[in-house]
């Protein structure tokens, strides 16, 4: 009987873990996590028991973040999005597909000759999933209170071979009164074209890992985000985030967090939001 003790103990712990995870995941609050994926982007969202992942970071980098925030029994991702075909945005999805089933996949257009990205598309195809290509003006409705609007790229920017960054999807996540803008790697000259139609937002993910090509003071002046997020790796070789960008954030007295210090988890009830790092 004593020999069975570890197994019985293990079973008891399992039951407690599952119950605790079920209780915490069945709340109606919206959760958005900027995962620490090293140098890259990886954003996990959960609401109404639906799991959405926007960008997957480099290879093997997002799986542990998903495992931390998704319940053990939930192995289905309802929507997977890749903003553009750079490996620090999609490669992590290659092994996510080994661990999770994916129901829908959406992406931009600029992926024509990227070998690894084709491998991801092939893997999805084998699982019976065809990519939905998104362009400006479209919207993905998750339910009555949560939607994801596509702000970029317009149709004429869907065939860019020389700079994939500018075919990046820019997405507005809209949960009741809470709004977050996710910018992929779009250059600031194009990001600023969008500003006329935008107002103050709650959360803003800086474009291109805080590079100075991604964001400038015009962006912050219009959006005045309550929280800015920099998704970059520790001691990365590109020097992201750029010190000029940090200076602008400081000058505007804007609160910002970086995934260099770990996952940034935001919870919103549709009005305000709380942040944890």
């Amino acid at each position, binding site marked *: 009987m*004593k020999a069975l003790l570890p197994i019985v103990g293990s079973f008891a712990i399992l039951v407690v873990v599952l119950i605790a995870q079920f209780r915490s995941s069945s709340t109606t609050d919206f959760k958005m996590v900027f995962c620490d994926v090293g140098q890259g982007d990886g954003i996990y969202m959960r609401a109404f028991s639906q799991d959405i992942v926007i960008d997957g970071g480099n290879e093997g980098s997002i799986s*542990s973040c998903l495992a931390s925030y998704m319940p053990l029994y939930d192995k289905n991702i309802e929507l997977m999005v890749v903003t553009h075909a750079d490996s620090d945005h999609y490669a992590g999805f290659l092994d996510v597909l080994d661990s999770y089933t994916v129901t829908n996949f959406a992406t931009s257009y600029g992926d024509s000759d990227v070998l690894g990205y084709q491998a991801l598309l092939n893997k999805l195809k084998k699982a019976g999933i065809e990519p939905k290509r998104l362009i400006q003006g479209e919207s993905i409705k998750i339910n009555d209170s949560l939607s994801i609007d596509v702000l970029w790229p317009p149709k004429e920017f869907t065939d860019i071979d020389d700079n994939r960054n500018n075919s990046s999807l820019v997405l507005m996540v809209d949960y009741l009164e809470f709004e977050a803008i996710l910018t992929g790697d779009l250059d600031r000259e194009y990001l600023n074209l969008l500003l006329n139609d935008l107002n103050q937002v709650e959360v803003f993910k800086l474009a291109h890992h805080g590079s100075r090509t991604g964001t400038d003071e015009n962006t912050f002046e219009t959006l005045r985000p309550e929280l800015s997020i920099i998704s970059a790796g520790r001691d990365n070789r590109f020097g992201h985030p750029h010190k000029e960008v940090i200076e602008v954030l400081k000058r505007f007295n804007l609160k910002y967090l970086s995934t260099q210090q770990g996952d940034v988890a935001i919870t919103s009830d549709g009005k305000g939001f709380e942040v944890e790092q």
Partner: protein
Amino acid sequence: MLRRYEIPLLIASIFLLILILRFLFFFTFEEKLIVGSDVEIEHTFLEQPKSNEFQQYFYIDDALVVLPLFPKYSYGDKLKLKGTVEKLSSRDGSDVTEKLIIRNPEVKSIESEELAVFKFIRQRIVLAYKSILPPREAGLLSGVVLGVEDGIDDGFKNELKRTGMLHVVVASGSNVVLVAGIIFGLISGLVKKRLGIIFTIAVIFFYALLTGFDPPIVRASIMASFGFTALLLGRQRVALMSLMFSGWLMLMISPRLVTDVGFQLSFSATFGIILFQKIILTVGRIVPNLLKEDFATTLAAQIGALPFLLFAFGEVSLLSIFINLILLWTVPIIMIFGLLSAVLGLSIPILASPFLYLIYPLLAFFSEVVRLSSNFYIPLTLDSIYAPITVIYYILVVYILMKRKEAK
């Protein structure tokens, strides 16, 4: 006239001399890669190449081979590489080591039929683990059961290294010996001894099949089979001789093995079991009967392999021994359930899930202890005195053993 004890000593010396000659011959005339030369090499991956954000890389002998990030290569893939050998230098152009590099060679994929079945088996098992468990725990389980490190990310691998636990996930003799010990321990009360031995050996080779006939596992399987058979038939001396002979034969065929961590672990773990398992069984009265055999086997293997377990991976923390003590009891349980779910995962994957859920807390416990204790890393630099310490350790072990026999 030779005395009785001198005959085996003489035979052992002759064997040792032949081995030394073989080493001298092999390492003197070994073909080496030359800087600046164009080479054409066939390479079969027995483990997944490592990768960073930009490239994949792996070693062929002393040369680092660098390939683009995609297409991805994995266990069982066979390539023909054509490139130039260069000296590995740092970013500022200065030479950093004696190491060589073959950068972005021309690559041609060759169909490797002989490994295709094993590749399929390994993939199926790893996927079964991944589809139920979180990645960290799935990687840990693949490591413990199959000795594959592919699913373990660099961060976790580093933590395992810092805590002296990396040996648990390396394809080595410890795993094989553990499987053999567990299986025999479990069935020895149920069937006759001889039948038990045959069954155990069959399981050892089935296990080798599950791991894709990974060379370290195959070598360990041979050693464990010889050692176990003789030991279980009650002949400790024959068991030791079988082990020595199989080790000798392997080194004669491939002298390079002498520096192979897996080989060192297999050999020393089996050595430990042969010498210590019975003693521990008689001493360890505190352990519940059902686990007694497993406990004795695990502990004996640990005693045998201790210097290699602690130092083989280049660094050791002062806390390693304590962390090993806290965690090692989980390994046989993880192994049994992991094996069961591997077999089920191959046939009807859904049946594997209850077993995987059941060991999840143990895996999570293991991984959390490793994560937390890796923060308290107290490095011990023993590089220069590692060899003398190992020798002293084994002399002490044998001395204690002989004293014990004399006392009887």
